[in-house]
């Protein structure tokens, strides 16, 4: 018997690294791209936790174990499309193209991490839950109204899908045929609250039905499947077919943030089960079985991404500490007379 969690869920490469849908496997180049993206994301996540311990990054919400869900979706976009990540989705953002140095600065609390590189259509990590969903509708409509065939992809967690903004956005996008892809990463937990306590719904993708839009459910630890369904959704949106809700079924094997202790609210039995379904290991097993991967290639990849990461941290380290009077600088494009006065006072108080 299938467990309810696994009902109606598309898997292409299963947890053991076996292929269950050969008809849906992409070409070798795409497979390599998917694998590389997951490894790169994982490297970041692991190193980020270390940087935090060294006091070189602030509070950080790890995504380890969710690489397939994040990289597989983000790789379905082009740089003309919008990406709206939450705090959990550093993996999606860096896969899309947000520079690692900037991500380090962001989680280091530095204002240098805030402004996006010119032209990069990523919005800053959303921390208030669900607000990104209506924004995605607006981004998508703005693209269409300006005659461009670009889409907007927004992420949310299972817990976040309890907010009104989630439901309003789905309905709104459906009513206006907004070219959106809504990714709902069902990782089983909202801090200490399991998905089963957030909602009675088991299959969250079915909520789409209520809004008259397509909903698909995919094995969130199978990047091949995630990428497949996301590409379909992106193509549909681009072609004028409206929004799609994608539920990626995955698990938060890590703590909520680096300062959370999951031992307070869950046993790790289920975590161990999910570690067996690891997205990186399963694709590597599949690639190795097909003779598309080996230790030499793995070592070369590790060298590459390690070097890239270290160079990025060095770059982040070169940014100067911010000064107090800067705090008034970006309240408005043109400061009010009162703010100008506050700035002068801050300069006097802090001398910087």
């Amino acid at each position: 018997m299938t467990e309810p969690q696994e009902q109606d869920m598309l898997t292409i490469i299963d947890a053991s690294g076996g292929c269950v849908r050969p008809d849906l496997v992409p070409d070798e180049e795409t497979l390599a791209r998917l694998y590389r993206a997951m490894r790169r994301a994982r490297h970041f996540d692991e190193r980020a936790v270390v940087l935090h311990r060294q006091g070189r990054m602030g509070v950080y919400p790890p995504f380890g174990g969710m690489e397939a869900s994040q990289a597989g979706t983000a790789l379905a976009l082009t740089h003309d499309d919008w990406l709206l990540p939450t705090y959990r989705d550093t993996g999606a953002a860096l896969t899309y193209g947000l520079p690692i140095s900037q991500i380090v600065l962001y989680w280091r609390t530095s204002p240098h991490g805030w402004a996006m590189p010119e032209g990069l259509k990523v919005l800053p990590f959303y921390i208030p839950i669900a607000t990104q969903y209506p924004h995605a509708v607006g981004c998508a409509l703005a693209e269409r109204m300006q005659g461009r065939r670009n889409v907007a992809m927004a992420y949310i967690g299972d817990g976040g899908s309890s907010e009104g903004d989630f439901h309003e956005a789905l309905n709104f996008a459906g009513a206006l045929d907004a070219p959106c892809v809504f990714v709902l990463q069902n990782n089983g937990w909202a801090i200490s609250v399991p998905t089963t306590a957030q909602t009675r719904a088991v299959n969250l993708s079915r909520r789409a039905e209520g809004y008259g839009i397509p909903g698909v459910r995919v094995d969130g630890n199978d990047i091949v499947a995630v990428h497949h369904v996301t590409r379909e959704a992106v193509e549909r949106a681009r072609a004028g077919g409206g929004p799609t809700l994608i539920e990626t079924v995955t698990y938060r094997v890590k703590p909520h943030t680096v300062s959370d202790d999951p031992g307070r609210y869950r046993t790790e039995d289920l975590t161990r089960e999910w570690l067996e379904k690891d997205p990186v290991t399963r694709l590597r097993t599949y690639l190795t079985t097909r003779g598309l991967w080996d230790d030499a290639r793995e070592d070369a990849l590790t060298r590459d991404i390690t070097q890239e990461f270290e160079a990025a941290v060095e770059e982040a380290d070169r940014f100067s500490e911010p000064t107090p009077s800067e705090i008034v600088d970006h309240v408005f494009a043109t400061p009010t007379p009162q703010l100008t006065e506050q700035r002068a006072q801050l300069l006097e108080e802090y001398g910087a």
Partner: protein
Amino acid sequence: MTTAVDTTTYRDALREALREGLRRDPHVVILGEEVGRYGGAYGVTSGLLDEFGEDRVLDTPISEAGIVGAAVGAALAGLRPVVELMYVDFAALAMDQIVNQAAKARSMFGGQTGVPLVLRTQGGTGRSAGAQHSQSLEAWFLHTPGLRLYVPATVTDAHHLLLAALREPDPVVFVEHKALYTTRSDLGAHAPPPGVSVRRREGRDVTVVTYSRMLHRCLDAAQALAARGVEADVIDLRTLCPLDLEPVVASARRTGRVLIVTEDTLTGGVSAELAARVTELAFDWLEEPPMRLAGEDVPIPVAPALEEASVPTPLRIERAALRLLGRRA
């Protein structure tokens, strides 16, 4: 002889008030995000789920409008809900229920029924939580007729004001401060009721009016001022609605100088209301206009040093007091 000193934290004092409320009144229920198993984002409700069960301590979906809306309904139907909003910033998501519903129910039912709802939340800087998790938004509630507004600074007040809130027939917005949860002192057996301001330090030279975490910064500043021969009279408002300015006016008559210190932003903030009222009530005795020291009119930065620069510090309070006295800092 052993005397227990500094035995209770602000967090424990709040929890004990909730526990007492749950014990003495079967209508009290707690609901909010993470209040059950996790024990609240800041640990205030820790242990209450085990003691009182899932019918009285409810982990809700992440849905601030839904939580406050359900609490308003439950209050109208006879319960006394205590909502925990993780961050006061998220009150923005529930503002319709707070402002248009909870606050207006008694009036719009012609006095027949009210909404005995306690909305516990926390605000302020001090944990590098960023622009959307560090605000001091009490002016929003102060500006809304029908809401009581309690802003405890001390362990004893955290406890007794929360107990008082649990007896109120009308909605109380109870704003804790995230930087105070681990502060410790003895838990006093009694405290004045809401609507009574309290002098926390006596002095003849300058009146300092404040509340919540800024009380502690004002007391630190007062100590530094004393070393320079300036004695500050420090008054803790404790509740902003009801508001008791009598001790402030009495003090202003003696000092002639009033410094108002708040963490919320300056423009349109609580300090503006206080300055206006102090001016109206004590104009004849004032040597100088009331001076305000408040949060800068900026989104709170997340970098710790910048965050600190966006709100009054003991040093800036000290300097402001000296300026008000016409002395060089």
